[in-house]
Every structure is written in structure tokens, then in C-alpha cells.
């Protein structure tokens, strides 16, 4: 299983010099599929690898640097659009890691720009972004209403000239999820970066990544999210402060699972529960061709993600609506 070879290499980069050339194809395909090739390239700096591999890694580093440049520019544009409101956006995920120079950001691919603003200022923020050239991409009224009523973010917006997406959050989990993180505390504890930008506190950064991975979504792209968590955990100075913060947000069990998975996948190992083992199997499901070799498990996690997201009756209504509109699970 190539995902396994990939994480072994991320954990212990010096193994690279002992790999046979034929093993690289599977590792590179799995890394591309998991959007971890840039991260792998950074990890393998200074390690002896075959020439064709080092050319591929150099390309990936170049791409990651470009992504970072674009992400920081998008953050700058969003900050400029919100500045007249006296509103400083809190950067989340990739853009935050890049802007704060964190190790989680090294070589990382950054997709959309994610920002957090206070919920009571969401309407103003949306109006300012629309005026600055962002546009709605979900024309469906059901989707739009669903986002506004139940999600932790506005429907996604795309900038009409730069073609980049922005997700404007007011908290870090959907309102229908069981844990209810304290959004006001996320905002009051945020840290100034300069340039009109903020990031979450050290502890909240970990907990956002944990909540996103463990309590929302179907674990697609999970290996990259787990790598983020590994790096963010390594930056934590006071473990007990993190524990207290997790308890405050109702994320204690999620944090514990994240620690076990990080230790198992990227560290020296830790005892896993039965459910943890399912997570690990799902995380390591890429084969040597970059394909998901455990589709049934992916489907199970897809169903789980919906059960996490809403109560059964609401879920039935939601699925029925989406089915009638022609939506089918991937």
C-alpha cells in the first residue's frame, strides 16, 4: 500500500536513500493524490534521491511557493476589502500557516482562502466582499439557504477576476454538529500578525484542524489534514493549556483521537481503539496508482459525515432534496 510508504517517508525522510527506483512511482502518485507532494519535497530536502525524483520534487516545491504567494495575496485583498468596516479577518488553515510562517505551511498546497469573522458582522462582511468583486457560486436556492441556516460559513464566493474562492466562516463547525465550539472565544484569543491580518491562537489552531478532520467531513484529504495537526501539535508549548482549551470547546475526545492517529501514522505509535483502526485504514487507502483502494470504507465515512452533520430526520429530508436535484455521492 503506497500511502503507507508515503507516511513512512514523511515520518523518517532518510529512508529515501534506501528506496528502490521502482518504489517511487507509487509514493509520488499517492502523494499527489493526497496533496502532500510539496510537503514531501520539503521533508526530503538534503536527502539523496534519484535524479528523476529530485526533478519532480523541485517542481512540487515551485508549485507550493506559487500557491503560497497567491494565498497571501488573496488574504491581503480580503483584508483590504474588509478594512473600511474596521474588520480584520482571522485567517484559517493553509493561508494562516503560510502567513504565520508555521511548519505546517512548508510545502503545503493551499486551496481556498478561509477566514473567520464575528457572526454578527457576517452580513456587512459579505456585502463588502461582493462590492470588492467576489461573486456567489451556488446559484441553487436550497444550497444557499442550507448554508445560511445550518453551516459554519457563508456559501462560497469566487473572485470574478482572480478566480479564487473564499470561505467566510463565523465558527469552525456546522451549527448542526454535536460539539459547539465557542466562536467568541476563538475571536477574542486570536493573534495579530500585522498587515490587517489575524490568526487563531496556538491552541485554537490545533483544535480547528482537529474539529475539521474528526467532527466534519468524510476524511478525504485526511492524510494532509493529519500532517497539519502533527505540525501544529509540535508547535504547542503548554500541553495542559491545549487540554483545557479542548474541554472548553467540547473537543476533548476529538483531540485525544487526533493525538493517537498522529502518533500512529506520523510518530512512534500509540495504542489505537477499534474505531481508530478504521480511521487509519481510511487514511491509508491510496494504492500504488494513487487510487482509493477501499471505496466501501470511503462510502461508510461519507455516510458518517452526514450523520455527524445533522440529526436523522433532517438528514433524510436533506438527502431526498439533493437526490431529486440529481446529486449522487461521488
Amino acid at each position, binding site marked *: 500500500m503506497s500511502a503507507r510508504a508515503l507516511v513512512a517517508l514523511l515520518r523518517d525522510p532518510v529512508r529515501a536513500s534506501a528506496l528502490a*527506483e*521502482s518504489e*517511487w*512511482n507509487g509514493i*509520488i*502518485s499517492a502523494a*499527489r*493524490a493526497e496533496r502532500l507532494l510539496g510537503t514531501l519535497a520539503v521533508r526530503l530536502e538534503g536527502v539523496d534521491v*534519484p535524479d*528523476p*525524483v529530485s*526533478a*519532480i520534487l523541485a*517542481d512540487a516545491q*515551485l*508549485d507550493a511557493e*506559487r500557491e503560497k504567494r497567491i494565498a497571501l495575496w488573496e488574504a491581503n485583498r480580503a483584508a483590504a476589502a474588509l478594512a473600511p468596516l474596521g474588520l480584520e479577518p482571522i485567517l484559517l488553515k493553509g493561508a494562516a500557516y503560510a502567513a504565520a510562517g508555521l511548519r505546517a505551511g512548508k510545502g503545503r498546497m493551499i486551496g481556498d482562502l478561509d477566514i473567520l469573522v464575528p457572526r454578527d458582522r457576517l452580513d456587512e462582511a459579505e456585502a463588502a466582499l461582493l462590492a470588492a468583486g467576489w461573486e456567489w457560486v451556488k446559484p441553487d436556492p436550497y444550497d444557499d439557504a442550507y448554508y445560511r441556516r445550518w453551516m459554519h460559513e457563508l456559501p462560497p464566493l469566487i473572485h470574478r477576476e482572480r478566480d479564487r474562492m473564499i470561505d467566510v466562516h463565523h465558527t469552525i463547525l456546522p451549527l448542526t454538529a454535536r460539539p459547539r465550539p465557542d466562536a467568541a472565544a476563538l475571536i477574542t484569543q486570536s493573534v495579530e500578525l500585522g498587515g490587517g491580518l489575524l490568526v487563531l491562537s496556538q491552541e485554537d489552531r490545533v483544535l480547528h484542524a482537529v474539529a475539521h478532520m474528526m467532527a466534519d467531513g468524510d476524511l478525504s484529504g485526511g492524510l494532509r489534514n493529519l500532517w497539519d495537526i502533527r505540525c501544529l501539535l509540535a508547535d504547542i508549548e503548554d500541553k495542559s493549556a491545549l487540554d483545557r482549551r479542548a474541554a472548553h470547546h467540547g473537543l476533548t475526545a476529538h483531540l485525544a483521537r487526533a493525538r493517537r492517529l498522529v502518533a500512529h501514522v506520523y510518530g512512534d505509535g500509540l495504542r489505537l481503539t477499534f474505531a481508530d483502526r478504521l480511521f487509519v485504514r481510511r487514511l491509508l487507502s491510496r494504492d500504488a*496508482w*494513487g*487510487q482509493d483502494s477501499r471505496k466501501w470504507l470511503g462510502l461508510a465515512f461519507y455516510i458518517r459525515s452526514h450523520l455527524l452533520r445533522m440529526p436523522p430526520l433532517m438528514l433524510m429530508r436533506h438527502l431526498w432534496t439533493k437526490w431529486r436535484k440529481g446529486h449522487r455521492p461521488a
Partner: protein
Amino acid sequence: MRHALTLGIGPATFRIGSEWGQPIDQLSALYAAYPQDAAAVADYTVRLEPAGPLRRWWRPSVRIAGDHMLPDAAPMALRHGLLAAEMGMNLQMALGWRRHLLIHASSVEKDGRALVMTGESGSGKSTLAALLGERGWRFMGDEFALLDLSDGGVHPFPRLVSLKNAAIEAMRAEVGDSARFGPLLEDTPKGAIRHLVPPADAIARMREAAVPALLLFPRYGVARDVRPVGQGEVFMRLTQASTNYVALGEEGFEALHRFVTEVPALAIDYESGDEAAAMIDELWSALP
């Protein structure tokens, strides 16, 4: 994947996996003269997957997947599997290649100097390159010209020539050896397609670059004419013809700027391959 092939084309290496044997057998035969080292590290992986759970057997249908994918690409019939593989490889180059400035253009070489031809689909650039490749020029590629980021040279990417519709008969008349042609693929999204194996010297010299000497914007089906094209227009058209100009940033700008300022550019209109070949010979011999 059940069937696999590793192929070296120009500077790039592809690993192609398929759930069906037929596309791989066809590729392996048509690319017989190219490096096929199964142990080589591939720059890109292409996968030909069944488009749905039953589609390996029942009305078999191919989804083009791989390292780089288009989310909404339409699946293709298995009888067009060879075309799917070619499209998959092109897609990897178009979306992933960073080691040269990639221009959607054909190119041929003579005396170490390259003629580059670019234009919309249907302009005849592909057929012209194939034609010249049979008439004393070295064929370098019908799809992508790769501009060197440091010295400005043009690197070949001589994959199979993809002949469409009327170009198939035209090249059948030009090339005596029928073994160089792939199967006729009818009713593809682009009409009839037949692949042509490039001449032996094009394959043997596929890692040999050339200095660009002339850029043409051919246009097929319009009465003979030759017009100069200004540098500003050339620059704009080439940024549109490049899939990685933006991704390469400053390096891409430098490479394109150098190409545009050093290489003369002309638009030519022509009504037949013979006419275009004669015009090109004339223009070529008039170069300094």
C-alpha cells in the same frame, strides 16, 4: 491496475495504467521505438479506469484519470481507449509540466533551427508538421513545443501525431508504410482520428533541442497570403497558447519575452498542404 506501460516521450516519462489490455497493447505497439522501461521513475501517472462500477464489462467506458485530472471530463468508449491514453498524457503535460514553457504548437527542425507553428484547432499546424516531417525536416512535435527556460531552445515532444478527418487521407498518401498508422477511430468527439508514428529520426533525436528561427500562425482554407505579426500580438497569442505561462511566473515571462523578441513571426494562409510546404520553403530560405 491490470495493464501498465511506462513510456518516455521527449523529456517526460509517463506511467499508463489501464483496466483493459487493448489500449496498452495499442500504445505499446505504436510507441515500440520509444523508451519503455517499466522500472523508470515516471513524471506522471495516467489511469484508464472504468467510468462506473459495471463499466469494465458492460458497455465499457473509460474515464481518464491520473495525477492531474479534469473534474468533469466526459467518459469515452473503450474502442477510443488509445485516444483516451493520449489525452491523458497531454493533460498531465498541460496541467503539470514546469521544466519548460509549454506552448500549444507544432515544430519541425532543419540544420539545428526550429520552425514553430501555432494556431487554433483546425489551423493545420499538426498536419503541416507531419507533412514537413516526411519532406526533409525533422519532426519535433504536433502538440507541444517546449521552450527552454535558460537558453530559449525548443525541445521536442514527439508523441504520436493525431491526424483528424481529411488529414488522415492526406497523410496516407504521403506515408508509404501503413504500419506507421494506428487504428482508425471513428466518431470521436473530434470526428475521425488516426494516429501516426513519427519518422524514426524524430524518435531517435527526441532529446535534441533546436534554436527557434521562425514562428508561423498558419490558417488553412483561406487564399494564399503572408502577413507580418507584431510582437505585442505574438506575445498575447502565445500567452493564450501556453498552459503554464502563469504558473511559471517570472521565468515564464522571461522565456516568452526572449522568444518573441528574437524570433520573426508571420501569419500564413493556404489552401493545400503542397502550397503551404512551398510557402514555408520560400520563407525559410529568406531567413537571415
